[in-house]
């Protein structure tokens, strides 16, 4: 098992290195003369020379890449082109905000979707199951901003139950944090829950058709006991996988949701940086998102190995 885990870790690490090369190449090397690109209309010779000096563009790309990566590992991502502040200082609080929102949404979405998915599997083909089916299809089809704006229009503007703009001040208490980020959390939950629920239902149903379930049924066990005690543990590996994928999705889905609620997270920072062509900030955000995403996939792999005895003791 250790060998298997070691292989996964090494593969994840290697992927991360390749991705970091790609991020660097696409932002700084492939587009050609990026100093002129960044400045656009204001590309006077002096300005171009200033940007070149700042990014160190006179040196060969491989040298700059190694320096960038070594800096990034130590938390030094260089200086933002837009406001000259160290990128690490700009990103720190933003990353915290995004993680807060994603974890908040996950804590609500994961138990809820597993519960609803298992219920849909127990009451298969019932009215509840059909309603869930139609509801999840509709939720998958709606863009995040549609759900977000509907929630704002009704829950924030019409009824004034929740704030429309998710402000985040350090002096707020934890409860106030939860309250002010309730609508973006709810939007994210509605987006991910459909997929997680469908997968839970499908994997429980797949296990339900196996012989030992029929055996349990013939023994006279109740349906809910069969699902909870016999089917669910065996359906756990695919469910864990889907949950990890959706958590990874949460980290990305926040980009649009943060824009809807003007929430100061990492996603909005990255979008701003992309439209301003603030290369160091884009690189840092891209790298952090890549680390989180690859890390979550790795955790999913490890957990599904651990939850499956056949993989735990390979012959």
């Amino acid at each position, binding site marked *: 098992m250790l060998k298997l885990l070691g292989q996964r870790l090494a593969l994840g690490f290697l*992927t991360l290195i*390749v*991705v970091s090369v*790609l*991020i660097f190449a*696409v*932002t*700084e090397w*492939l*587009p050609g003369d*990026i100093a002129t*690109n960044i400045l656009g209309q204001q590309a006077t010779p002096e300005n171009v020379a200033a940007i070149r000096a700042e990014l160190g563009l006179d040196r060969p790309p491989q040298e700059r890449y190694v320096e960038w990566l070594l800096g990034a590992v130590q938390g030094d991502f260089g200086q933002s082109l837009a406001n000259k502040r160290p990128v690490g200082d700009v990103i720190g609080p933003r990353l915290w905000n995004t993680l807060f929102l994603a974890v908040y949404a996950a804590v609500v979405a994961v138990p809820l979707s597993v519960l609803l998915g298992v219920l849909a599997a127990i009451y298969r083909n019932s009215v509840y199951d059909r309603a869930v089916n139609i509801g999840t*299809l*509709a939720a*998958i*089809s*709606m*863009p*995040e*901003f*549609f759900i977000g*704006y*509907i929630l*704002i*229009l009704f829950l924030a*503007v*019409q009824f004034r139950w929740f704030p*429309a703009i998710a402000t985040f001040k350090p002096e707020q208490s934890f409860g106030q944090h939860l309250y002010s980020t309730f609508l973006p959390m709810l939007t994210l939950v509605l987006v991910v829950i459909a997929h997680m629920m469908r997968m839970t239902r499908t994997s429980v149903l797949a296990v339900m058709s196996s012989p030992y379930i029929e055996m349990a049924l013939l023994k006279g066990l109740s349906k809910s006991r069969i699902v909870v005690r016999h089917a669910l543990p065996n359906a756990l590996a695919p469910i864990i996988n889907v949950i990890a994928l959706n958590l*990874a*999705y949460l*980290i*990305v889905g926040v*980009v*649009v949701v943060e*824009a*809807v609620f003007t929430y100061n997270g990492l996603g909005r920072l*990255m*979008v701003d*940086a*992309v*439209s301003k*062509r603030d*290369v160091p900030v*884009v690189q840092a955000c*891209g790298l952090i*998102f*890549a680390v989180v*995403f*690859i890390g979550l*996939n790795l955790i999913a792999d490890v957990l599904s190995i651990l939850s499956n005895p056949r993989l735990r003791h390979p012959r």
Partner: protein
Amino acid sequence: MKLFGLRLTSTALVGIFIILACVGGAVFAPWIAPHDPNLPLGGRWGPPSAEHWLGLDQIGRDMLSRILYGGRISIGLALLATVLAFVVGIVTGFAAAVFGGWVDIAFSRIADVVLSIPILMSALIIISGFGTTTTVLVLTIGFLYSVLVFRVARAVAMNIAVLDYVEVARLRGEGLMWVILREILPNALPPLAAEFGLRFCFAFLFIAALSFLGLGVQPPDADWGSMVKESALAIPAGIAAPLYPAAAIALLTIGVNLVVDWLLSIYSRPQGENA
């Protein structure tokens, strides 16, 4: 009711109707749009009326006309990106399945790396490097989705390439192109058709999201996503203006999804059952 000899379910019929309505509205926009989409006709965010069914936008342009014209850009770009993704994905996927060996390994590793980070992140990084033009947008999405299509096309072709009739064609001495075009492609079409619908949905939602973030279609052009962004300030005032283009996006996606579900349910059933 039947279509090409296949029984239509009521949900599939609804889906087809939605798709026809959306595509028809976009194609015939110049003839059916009640007003000029770029001409301010009244005050900011005028309410829906008999003259302006969906009201006016942030500078007083007719919302319905703008949605009809915006559909041309939204649907057109998504279709272009999906077709590009399928041409590249199918060629590389079939090549990987038929040649095997290092061709397969090389393409598969590239796919693994590209898919190791979220597609939205890759798109943001590429756009930051190459700028926000429509050409970059379509090429970026076409390339990123071609990787997903590659995986499906490779898997489908792998399954077909080992079947007896392909073996027979090879032994008969047919060339590689014959095997790919005449033996594998026709049998890979049904699953790939469902995949096309699904990919179109994602590409369509993806372009809308990028436009909404201000990184997709740029003014003066407007697709549904950028219309939502431009009129977003109406929401705190309690005006539903941005919900109309957003609803158009949701509607078309639901329509395509219904048809895709129907296609999948047909091809996953044994032959003869759908008569």
